[in-house]
C-alpha cells in the first residue's frame, strides 16, 4: 500500500516536472503563403527564445474557411488548440459559447488598455475579460496605383469622388483598365465599405454598416452609395467576376490596370514582385476617406486550457501584443503594429503613412471596423455582401439593392 502511494507520488512529481519543461503552444492558423509563412516564423522564433515550443497547426485554403471548419470539429471533440486565428465578430460568436480562456492577467501586466485603441479593445474583450489578441492593423480603404500608369495620365492625385472618377475616365480613354477588381462577394464588400465612407462619411458608415440602422440603410445617402458602386462597374473589365484579389493586384503591377482598391495585404504582392513604394507603385487613401482607417486586425482567440498550459498561453499572448514582436511581423505581413507604443522605424513609406494615420484615427475616433469581418456578425455581413454582389453582377438594380440592404438588417434574427 505504502509502495503504491509512493509510486503514485513519484509519478505525479514526474508529471508536474515534465509539464513544466514541455511548455508549448499549439496554434491554428491559415497563413500558408510564402510571405505569410515567413511572418509566422517571427512568431515562432520569438516564442522559442522564451523557451516555448511552437506547435504549428496550419490549415490551408479557402480564406480560412477550411481552418474554421477544422477548428469547430476540434472544439466539439473537446480538443481545442491553445489558440486559433479567429477574426472580427467571429470572436464574439466564440466567446458567447463560453469556450474562450481569460487572458486579462496579461492585459493588466502589459497595460493593453492604455496601448490599444477602444475599437481594438472591442474585438479583444468579451464581458470585460480579454479573450483575444487583435495585434496588427490592416486597413481596407486604400487605393493601389501603378505609378507609371498614373504619371502617364497627367492628373492630380484624387482626393474626392469627382477627381477619382475623372482619373478613372482618363485611364479608360487611354485604353487602360481603370479599376482592377475581383468579383467575389467579399471584394465587392470592400468596395461597398469604401464608397460608403467616402459618400456618407464616418458617422453614416457607423449607423448604416456597423449598427444596421434601418433608417440609414434605406436613406437617400445609401441610394447614392449604391449608385456609385454601380458607376464603378463601368471602369472594371468584363472578366472581373470570380477573379481572386491577387490576380487583380497583378494587373496593376503589370500596368494592365491603373488601380485597385484593396486592403494593404495587396502591398505584399507588390513587394514580392520586387516593386518599391513611391517609385513603382503608390498608396493613396480611397478618395473621400482620408483620415479614416477602416481596419481588419489579425488576432488569435485563446481557449480554456489546463493550468499547466496556461503559463505558455499567457506568454504567447504577451508576445503577440508586444511592440517587439509586432514591428518585425508587420514588415513581413504588410500590416502595421496595433500597439500604439510601437516604433515605425522598420516600416516602408506606405507603412509609415499607415501607422501615423492609424494613431491619428485612434485619437480622433475615426478608427472603424472594416466591412469585411469587422462590421457585423456573419449572418448580417454576408447578407449585405450578397446584395452588393448581386448589384454588381446585374441581378439587382439600385432599388432592389436598397431594399436588400434594409432587409439584411433582419438577417440575424
Amino acid at each position, binding site marked *: 500500500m505504502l509502495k503504491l502511494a509512493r509510486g503514485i507520488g513519484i509519478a505525479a512529481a514526474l508529471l508536474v516536472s515534465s509539464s513544466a519543461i514541455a511548455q508549448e503552444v499549439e496554434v491554428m492558423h491559415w497563413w500558408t503563403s510564402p510571405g505569410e509563412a515567413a511572418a509566422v516564423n517571427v512568431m515562432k522564433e520569438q516564442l522559442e527564445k522564451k523557451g516555448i515550443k511552437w506547435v504549428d497547426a496550419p490549415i490551408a485554403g479557402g480564406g480560412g*474557411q477550411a481552418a*474554421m*471548419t477544422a477548428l*469547430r470539429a476540434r*472544439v*466539439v471533440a473537446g480538443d481545442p488548440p491553445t489558440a486559433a486565428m479567429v477574426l472580427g465578430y*467571429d470572436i464574439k*460568436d*466564440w466567446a*458567447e*459559447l463560453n*469556450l474562450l480562456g481569460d487572458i486579462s492577467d496579461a492585459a493588466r501586466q502589459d497595460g493593453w488598455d492604455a496601448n490599444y485603441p477602444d475599437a481594438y479593445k472591442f474585438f479583444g474583450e468579451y464581458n470585460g475579460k480579454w479573450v483575444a489578441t487583435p495585434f496588427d492593423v490592416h486597413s481596407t480603404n486604400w487605393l493601389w496605383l501603378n505609378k507609371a500608369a498614373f504619371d502617364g495620365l497627367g492628373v492630380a492625385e484624387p482626393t474626392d469622388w469627382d477627381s477619382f472618377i475623372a482619373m478613372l475616365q482618363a485611364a479608360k480613354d487611354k485604353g487602360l483598365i481603370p479599376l482592377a477588381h475581383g*468579383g*467575389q*462577394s467579399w471584394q465587392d464588400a470592400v468596395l461597398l465599405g469604401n464608397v460608403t465612407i467616402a459618400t456618407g462619411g464616418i458617422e453614416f458608415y457607423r449607423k448604416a454598416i456597423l449598427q444596421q440602422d434601418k433608417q440609414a440603410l434605406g436613406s437617400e445617402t445609401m441610394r447614392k452609395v449604391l449608385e456609385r458602386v454601380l458607376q464603378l462597374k463601368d471602369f472594371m*473589365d*468584363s*472578366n*472581373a*467576376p*470570380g477573379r481572386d484579389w491577387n490576380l487583380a493586384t497583378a494587373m496593376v503591377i503589370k500596368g494592365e490596370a491603373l488601380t485597385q482598391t484593396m486592403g494593404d495585404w495587396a502591398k505584399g504582392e507588390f513587394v514580392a514582385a520586387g516593386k518599391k513604394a513611391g517609385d513603382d507603385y503608390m498608396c493613396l487613401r480611397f478618395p473621400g476617406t482620408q483620415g479614416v482607417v477602416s481596419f481588419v486586425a489579425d488576432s488569435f482567440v485563446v481557449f480554456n486550457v489546463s493550468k499547466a498550459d496556461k503559463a505558455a498561453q499567457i506568454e504567447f499572448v504577451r508576445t503577440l501584443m508586444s511592440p517587439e514582436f509586432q514591428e518585425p511581423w508587420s514588415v513581413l505581413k504588410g500590416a502595421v503594429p496595433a500597439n500604439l507604443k510601437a516604433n515605425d522605424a522598420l516600416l516602408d513609406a506606405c507603412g509609415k503613412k499607415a501607422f501615423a494615420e492609424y494613431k491619428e484615427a485612434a485619437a480622433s475616433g475615426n478608427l472603424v471596423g472594416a466591412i469585411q469581418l469587422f462590421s457585423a*456578425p*456573419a*449572418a448580417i455581413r*454576408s447578407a449585405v455582401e*450578397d446584395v452588393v*454582389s*448581386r448589384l*454588381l*453582377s*446585374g*441581378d439587382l438594380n439600385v432599388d432592389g439593392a436598397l431594399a436588400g440592404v434594409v432587409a439584411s438588417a433582419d438577417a440575424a434574427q
Partner: protein
Amino acid sequence: MTIQLSSVNIRRVGAASGRAGSLVRRHERLIARLLLMPSLISSTIFVYGFIAFTLVLSFTDSKLLPTFNFVGWDSYAKLWGLNNWHVALQNLLVFGSLYVGICVALGLLIAILIDQNIKGENIFRPIFLYPMALSFIVTGTAWRWFLNPGLGLERSMHNLGWTDFKFDWIVDSHMAIYTVVIAGVWQSTGFCMAMFLAGLRSVDREIVKAAAVDGARGITLYRRIIVPMLRSTFLSVFVIQTHLTIKSYDLVVSLTGGGPGNSTDLPATFMYDYTFTRNQMGVGSASSIVMLLAVAAVIVPYLWAELRDRREKGDAK
C-alpha cells in the same frame, strides 16, 4: 458484363450450398453476418446517426457550433424565406434537368454509334470515358480557365483573328449556370455511354435477329426494339445522375465559386455556406434535411422497384 457474370456465379454458389445441407448454410450465414457487422455498425453511427443529429440540429437555433436550444420549425421558415435558397433551388432545377437530360441523350447516342462494331472501338471508348477519371474539382478548374473570356476560348478566337467572337457566359449572371451544365455534361457523358453500352451489349441477340427478320432496320430497330429493352439501364443512369445533381458541390465551387453574385449557387453550396461560413448552422441543417428528402424522393422509389423486381423473380423460381 462482368457484373452480370458474377451475379450468376453467386447464384450458382448459393444453389450448391443449398444442396450441401443446412448446417453449412447456417455457418456461412453466421460468418457473413459477422463480416457485415463492422460496416453495419459504422454506417449506423456515421451515416444514420449523423443524419439524426442533423435533423435534431435543424430544430435548434445553432449558430457557430451545435447548441440545443429548440425553436421548432423556425429554421425551416427562415430557410424558405431566404432569396438565396430559392436561387439555389431554381438553379438545381435548371442544372439537374439539363445535365441529366443531355448526359442521357448524348451518352445513349454515342453508345449506339460505338455499338455499330466500328473500327477502333477500343480507342473511342476510353476517350469518352476518360473525363470520368478526373474529379469534379479538376474539371471545374479546367473549364473555369477555358471559359474565362480573358484567358480561354474567347481570347484564343480573338488571337486567331475572329475578333467578333463572344462567349462570356461564365461572367454573365444569367448564363453562368449553363456553364456548370457544360462542364458537368463533359464529365459525365462518358459514364452514361458506358452504362448504355453495357446495356446494349446485354440485349438478347436472338431478339434483335428476329426483329431484323421481321424487317426492322437501323433507327427503327433501335427506337422500337432495343432502346425500350434498356429500361432498367435508363433507370439506373437516371437515378445515379439525379442524386449526383442534388449533391453537386465541388463542380460549382471550382468552376464559378457560386458566382457571379450568387447566381450559380446550388443547395449543397448553400448548405456549406450557411453551416460553416455564415454561422447559421440551424438554417444549414434544415437545408440539408430538405436535400435528404429530395434525394430520398428519387432513390426510394428506385430501391422499392428494384426490390419488388427481385422478389417477383424469386417467386417465379
